[in-house]
């Protein structure tokens, strides 16, 4: 669990504040790559990708 969820969320929003959609996308892609490197465990990464994917339509 993130110890201070509100502070983390605010920091994430602050990072995006005033960015163009392109710059926001760039920030997010870099963030994903940096976090993936921190995790460093293929199984956890594949689980995370599966969790984030849109649910298949019934």
């Amino acid at each position, binding site marked *: 669990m993130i110890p201070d969820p509100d502070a983390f969320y605010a920091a994430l929003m602050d990072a995006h504040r005033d960015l163009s959609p392109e710059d926001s*996308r*760039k920030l997010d*892609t*870099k963030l*994903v*790559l*940096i976090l993936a*490197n921190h995790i460093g465990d293929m199984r956890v990464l594949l689980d995370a990708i599966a969790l984030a994917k849109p649910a298949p339509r019934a």
Partner: protein
Amino acid sequence: MSFIQPRYAAAAPRAAEEAAPIVIVGGGLVGLTAALDLAQHGLRSVVLDDDDTVSVGSRAICFAKRTLEIYGRLGLGARFLEKGITWNQGRVFHRDREAYSFNLLPEEGHEYPAFVNLQQYYAEAWLVDACAATGLVDLRWRNAVTAIDGTRLSINTPAGDYTLHADWILACDGARSFIRRALHLPFEGQVFRDRFLIADVRMQAPFPTERWFWFDPPFHPGQSVLLHKQPDDVWRIDFQLGWDADPEAEKDPARVRARVAAMLGDTPFELDWVSIYTFRCRRMESFRHGRVFFLGDAAHQVSPFGARGGNGGVQDADNLCWKLAAVLRGQAPESLLDSYDAERIPAADENILNSTRSTDFITPKNDAARAYRDAVLELSAQHEFARPLVNSGRLSRPYNGYGTPAPDAPVLRDGAPDWLLRHLGRDFCVLSRGDAAATMLRTVTLGSDVEDHSGLAAARYDLAPGQAVLIRPDQHIAARFRATDAAAIRAAHTQALAP
């Protein structure tokens, strides 16, 4: 100096009907390699080629270590080393700075380097001469196959038509294989929506002998560029153009010259060869269809990023020829030939997988892919972790799925420096450390036949005193033995011939 394109005399029909045990369709890199390999196993072949010369243009220029070792076994290795440009190092640039570099041969003690760059026409011309010297290869230029029925081939030549009855056919007739199409065999896979321009230029340039790859360089913004050195002061420059480029307009020499000049500045150069290409990654479902085998681009196709086309094809020939020889000599059941499919299909899949991943990085398919690609490149400037994600081509490595290719090692022979692979021969052999039990097979003993003065041979084969390995004719390790027990070695040999 530069290469003089040979023109070989067309072969006229000898009779309206002829028979030949082995017919190779396509006298390109793979077909000629197969013919030479078969000849060294004592087998005659007829090679049919619809043209009268070797490769026009440099085409497959990067010969990988494993391929060089195969040419070493076939007696041409020294020519590649002497004429070719040796390189081990690759560098990737993003805009105007280096993003990533890699060394493909970090260890010493191998006769062959990670790569030698050489125009395909040199390799083919040497193969033509080497095939002729065996006296076993009947190379027939301007003999075009016009129909196939079973293993009966209809052939057209400038001097008339004839029929050739083959026992076995090796289709080495390239990505647009006539044999594959005539047999209505599917060849499915992925098409990449991108176009590339190859410009071979002749110049005196100060670039090092390394593979240089640029993403979004100032001289070709928004696209990628690859630079490679070849012999005779020829440089391969590969420009990504994008899907919307007009292939006819891009071939205009003035336009090509402008692109090259933007890259080279004031360096004078001449254009040697220009080609525009698109590519696919695909393979046949099976590489064996009865008595017809498919090798190289006829069987599988990859993108050029990774040097996996020509190298993959040569390794197909390396895998098939000894098996065909063993079957025709009655030493192995015909079922051994099915292992060509079983072994080379996964190898082709590995090449296709790597080539597809590289292409996905170089040619992003959508906005998300482009955003991630650019993020990786930007992060790689400051962050070590991002550099291995940069993918400008994962270069051809030997396939390990059917036994590790026998590693080379420096040895001494009668006190003189030599290389281990030169002593493994072209038939099954036992490599042992210390005394080996007597078998019917040729044995190479570390310590008596060759001296493992550096200890690298024992280390690379993981051989303790008294241990041995069985090596196949294509120089792959077939089995390992904790003790050199003759019965175990014989059983492994039998198993390797009848898997």
